[in-house]
């Protein structure tokens, strides 16, 4: 569950930004002849709803309904005792509470729009089966269509507000990682996490590769783990709906300096993968298309599922071999437009 700061900032995410996103969505809905759009959210898949309405669930699940004509509203399984909290942290026309969010959303659409309205569902295949069943029960004459491609198309290119939030998330992660001091790994992780939360992180996950001489895979630390001479930490940070990953290796300073520079050079060549072709053991590019904040988009271990779009925000990570040492490194990046190089948002060092 989320237990960092969840708050709406009218400075960082003004109404006008959300209005413009909704306008783009409604234009796409009109072209696709959709009467309404439904997007699912829980604390694992919050990124679609937070992008449109700033709502981030700390727990439980909800559906955002965007009528083609009318204000978006949330149907939440959270009880109405947290209605004021939802309203305070989001921008919504209304909040309806019902444990069966699919049933209520469908009844609402059928009643307010049309019994046989055409409803787009983002990531329909991934929607919880119980909610899909309830949508059909609540609106037996509604026509449901998958709206994943429609939604991905309008949100792929990051807008300035999104870039600013991701940059802030990256700064929080970087500053937090500078707090990595102490005799044990747990003390380091505690210091990093405390700093990130004090700086307003909505969430932070720390994973570690405690001894790079033995194991380069990252794990969440439970209990104690012995630190090697070189180790790496990965901070996954969310700030007001923007998610980034930053990976830093703690090792001899020459190597620590080299890695980010080589990494940034490879990232600059994205969406081409040729920058990672030599000197890298592995690499991964993640970004948000639909509702999952950091979805694997391309990488050394699998075929590209989605072409990287110009102007998209991504988080990149890679593993280099330098003087026989495995060196993981990673940072969020902004892809360039036509003929422009991509750039990391922050130096992981």
């Amino acid at each position, binding site marked *: *569950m*989320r*237990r*960092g*700061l*969840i*708050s709406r900032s009218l400075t960082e995410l003004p109404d006008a930004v959300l209005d413009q996103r909704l306008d783009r969505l409604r234009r796409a809905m009109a072209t696709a002849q959709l009467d309404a759009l439904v997007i699912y959210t829980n*604390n*694992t898949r919050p990124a679609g709803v937070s992008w449109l309405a700033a709502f981030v669930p*700390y*727990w439980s699940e909800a559906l955002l309904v965007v009528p083609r004509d009318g204000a978006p509203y949330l149907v939440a399984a959270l*009880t109405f*005792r*947290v209605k*004021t*909290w939802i309203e*305070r942290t989001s921008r919504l026309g209304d909040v309806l509470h019902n444990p069966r969010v699919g049933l209520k959303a469908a009844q609402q659409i059928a009643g307010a729009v049309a019994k046989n309205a055409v409803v787009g569902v983002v990531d*329909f*295949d*991934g*929607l*919880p*089966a*119980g*909610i*899909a*069943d309830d949508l059909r029960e609540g609106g037996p004459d509604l026509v449901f269509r998958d709206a994943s491609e429609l939604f991905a198309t309008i949100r792929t290119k990051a807008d300035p507000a999104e870039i600013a939030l991701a940059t802030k998330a990256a700064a929080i992660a970087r500053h937090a990682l500078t707090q990595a001091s102490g005799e044990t790994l*747990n003390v380091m*992780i*505690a*210091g990093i*996490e*405390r700093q990130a*939360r*004090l700086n307003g992180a909505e969430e932070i996950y720390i*994973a570690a590769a405690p001894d790079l001489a033995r*194991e380069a*895979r*990252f*794990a*969440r*630390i*439970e*209990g*104690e783990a012995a630190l090697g001479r070189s180790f790496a930490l*990965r901070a*996954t940070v969310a700030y007001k709906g923007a998610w980034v*990953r930053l990976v830093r290796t703690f090792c001899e300073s020459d190597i620590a300096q080299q890695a980010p520079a080589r990494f940034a050079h490879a990232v600059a060549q994205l969406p081409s993968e040729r920058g990672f072709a030599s000197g890298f053991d592995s690499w*991964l590019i*993640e970004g948000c298309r639909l509702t*999952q*904040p*950091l*979805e*694997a988009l391309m*990488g050394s*271990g*699998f075929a590209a*599922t989605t072409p990287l779009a110009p102007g998209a925000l991504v988080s990149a*990570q890679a593993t280099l071999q330098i003087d026989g040492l495995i060196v993981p490194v990673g940072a969020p990046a902004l892809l360039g437009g036509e003929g422009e190089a991509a750039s990391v948002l922050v130096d992981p060092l």
Partner: protein
Amino acid sequence: MMKTLAQERRQRLAVAMRESGIDLLLLYGNAWQADYLRYGADFGILEGHGIALIATDGAAELYLDSAVEAERAEAEAPLVRVHFAPDIARAVGARLDRLAGQRLAAAPRRFLPHYLADPARGFALDDATALVDTLLMHKSESEIAAVRRAAQIADEAYEVFLHSVRPGRRQFEIVADVEAYLRRRGCPDNFMIIGSGGKDVLGMTPPSERRIAPGDLVTTELTPAVDGYFAQICRTLVVGPATHAQQRAFAVFVEALEEGIAAIRPQARAADVARAENDVFRKYDLGQYTTSQWTRVRGHGMGLFADSKPHLLEDVNTGLEPGMTLIVHPNTYHPEAGYMVLGDAVLVTERGSEVLCRTPRRLFEVAA
């Protein structure tokens, strides 16, 4: 975590599957609803979807749609065969298509990606949620030991909370202190909500920017996990000296918690515990504050999920049995004091119950 606990769970699962005639069991999980997946695959998922396939010999395969989670699972759950599958529903569907003639089941079925439960698929998935729920609720000695350790850490973390609350601090700064303490103790997960203020506060939420002020009631539900097993504590404090009205109100919560715990015994029902708590409120003409308008549940199970079954409500007739672990918390609004919480983690034993939390049931006071 100890591999013996993971293996023990998998063995219990395999036995239950064989007894129910299930050939292959799908366990779905995400960071919110992670317990079914963790039970069978021994992996605490944080991002994306995960689906474990459990065979009757206990062998487990784990499909994850997050690349970093797949790498983490390989490191953290070495006994499980891990697959990274960006389109997890289709990857698992393709696997199930090859299992013609076998009886397949899933838990919790309602959370499965719609694609897998769609009648258009060439396979059918029975609902095994109740089967797995039974296993999740009835804990082995090793599982109880993990809950005990989590309860001990919950007590310690509440001490940290008490020292962290002072006027001028913001709610999210207090939670940062508690989370940092838990990470220092090697405890990677926690469920925590907080409330602060006066009679205008109706419940708890994630931390906000609100600053603590003199006279505030500060409530928290704090739920650390050890080896994936959560244990909860709920306490209320006052910033400054408690008023007589606050003390009087809190006494009702103490009495309700005591009555609720006293009602726990084998053969009792979840409803009996909720009724015992609520009867105390009714005795003081506060019955309306036990309804869903003011409170969600009067407690619930604890285990691999912070909010497990059974929920303690007057209409839940799940029988209590030794080995179940619960939080009993008569948390609700009191018209003279505001929203108050008080709850202890409890183990159902052969003779009644054992309270796992050690923090005094006091309305704590911190310096204003």
